[in-house]
């Protein structure tokens, strides 16, 4: 049981990390960015390409991967979000779905649909807790997720960009009327979310099968994690991810019928949302 919970918690770190990026965008735009996973995936591919195939130093390759994802976030904002401003949110979300398909097709054509070799950004033997070997990259992922949370809190509550962002998130029209350039705030938000997507994907790439689809597959869980967290709280989303991962760890161990895990998790998420429709954690602005 402990081993299932522990493994589930580390699994949940992955879900939570991806969910954070979803919340960053949702909080400002009220849009669920269905392209989040693919935006990160492309960054991870660029990273792997540079690091493994072109022998670029790790730090540079990571930086380049993150930069590419951030740029893709900005481009998505520019090409989909901006022109569709004022359209129903569902329309905009379908737009992000279009971006996700586009990026997926691009990756498949550019890199093939096959799995690729992924080396963890830090290697090593790891250490054993309760019969489970915890790999260094898992610890790193946890540390990075916590660092992102801290950094986001800092940016949100201690910087003028954060102030603009929170004002825009709460009432973009009123924010514009006091001179906030809401377009830039939106773009900055997408850049940050894109960068987070890229970093998440780089860290996750060596923990799952690394193919063009690897982030798309995690999106369903990340979305559920974000929902559990109330969609507007990054810490809630992260906590939701860990909760979900632990539930998956235990259910996957206890119950092996086909579809048992998926069905149980769906019921669990629904149950939580019925009891707490606004999620586990209050909104953060």
């Amino acid at each position, binding site marked *: 049981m402990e081993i299932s919970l522990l493994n589930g918690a580390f699994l949940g770190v*992955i*879900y939570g990390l991806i969910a954070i990026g979803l919340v960053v965008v949702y909080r400002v735009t009220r849009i669920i960015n269905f392209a989040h996973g693919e935006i990160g995936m492309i960054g991870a591919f660029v990273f792997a390409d540079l690091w493994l195939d072109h022998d670029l130093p790790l730090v540079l390759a990571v930086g380049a991967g993150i930069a590419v994802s951030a740029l893709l976030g900005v481009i998505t904002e520019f090409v989909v979000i901006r022109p569709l401003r004022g359209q129903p949110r569902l329309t905009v979300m379908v737009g992000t779905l279009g971006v996700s398909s586009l990026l997926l097709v691009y990756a498949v054509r550019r890199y093939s649909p*096959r799995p690729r*070799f992924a080396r963890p950004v830090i290697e090593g033997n790891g250490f054993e807790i309760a019969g489970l*070997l915890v790999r260094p990259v898992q610890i790193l992922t946890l540390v990075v997720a916590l660092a992102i949370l801290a950094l986001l809190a800092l940016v949100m509550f201690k910087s003028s960009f954060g102030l603009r962002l929170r004002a825009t998130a709460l009432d973009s029209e009123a924010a514009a009327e006091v001179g906030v350039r809401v377009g830039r705030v939106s773009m900055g938000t997408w850049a940050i979310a894109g960068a987070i997507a890229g970093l998440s994907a780089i860290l996750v790439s060596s923990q799952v099968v690394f193919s063009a689809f690897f982030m798309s*597959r995690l999106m369903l869980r990340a979305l559920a994690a974000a929902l559990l967290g109330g969609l507007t709280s990054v810490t809630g989303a992260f906590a939701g991810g860990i909760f979900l991962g632990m539930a998956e760890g*235990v259910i996957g*161990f206890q119950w092996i019928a*086909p579809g048992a*895990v998926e069905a149980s998790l769906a019921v669990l998420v629904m149950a939580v949302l019925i009891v707490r429709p606004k999620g586990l954690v209050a909104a953060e602005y």
Partner: protein
Amino acid sequence: MSRRPIRKLIGLVAVLALVAAACGDDDSSDTQATTAPTATTQASESTAAPETTAAPETTQAPVPTEGVTDDTITVSVVAGFTGLFGEVIEGIYVSGMETWLEDVNARGGVNGREVVLKKVDHQETAEGGIAACQEVLSNGSYTAILVQGTGPQAAAADCLDDAGFTNLVWTADDSFVNSWGSSYTIFPSEEGQGALLADFVSANASPDEKVGVVLLNVPVYTRIGNAFVDRATANGLDVVETVTVEFGQASFTPQLIRMEEAGVTTVAMFVTNEAIQIATDATTIAGFAPDYTGALFEFDFVTQAAPGVLDGATGLRISATVDTPEFAAFQALAAQYERSSVLDGEAFLYYGYGLILEEVLRQAGENPTADSLISGIEGISGFATGVLPPITWGSGDLVGSDGMFPTVCCSDINAWAADGPASSDF
């Protein structure tokens, strides 16, 4: 509203990945190039292809046969040429089948006729399979060979079968294979492959072996896996756990912890890319170091994405591995015809499809008709190329091969290695 579109997308992805899984069976063990009893072969050393006899010119064909002219014979090749995996399949087709096509025509064609291939796309959907069938029936083909896909190719073959159109199909599940009268499979049925694997595993199992089975929750995987479980149990193997996992699962550790607690010594996986992660996840469980076997992951693209992870895994393949002399010969031939873009085990398999097609056309005779096609196919016996297992069809026996190639991971290029000749009896 947010979840449904993503589900759809993921569903799409699932289908596509499945297709990828199905499309590429690799090469495996080193078949000693058994000479084809029918032909003058022995060309195997150089080309792995049974050499066609110098075709005597056909002088007259009084009754015109669809797809056959004095100079040409036309065959449809059905595969998923479009979609996310379309480009991969296209590449394999060009390197594998077109190498054969160039070669056979350079050798004078079959019975003096130039072979013309028509690509027909089943688009990886069942409807696409039916559409592909209609296209084959109307595009002036003498026969068709269905080289790739699971559902779509079965739908297409079933439709062709209904039309009484003689065709070759790589494989399908028993419910189709047992009902067909005009669709000849090249390989064992899906269930047959699962059962054969169970025999293979049983033969190599230690007396106290405990088998844990991992089934991907996708029909073709569960069909093969369940057939494996049935036969393994019948063989007296101790199958202690059978778990179903989901496509795209982020971790298999929960299920593996269960296996470890059940004392599993061999994990039989019916998955594709997931095999990498299953074997990786297992290493994080203290004291758990099972042997790996299973089906649908014995592809070089799987092991090459994860060097070392699957070392020691064993399994069966429908075609020979890339460490065989036949593969080297194919490589040389592909280079000669400038078809070398994708020189992997799957291209090698497609080359094998070309060879069996060539033999079928040759056996159909100098004046090919619908009837001579059937008698030609049913006359093929023990046709071995070293690329595919020996193939024998007969009256009422529409399954070409009972055997597969034993293989082990991995060679020094992280590709699957030959582990004995193709066999149907382990």
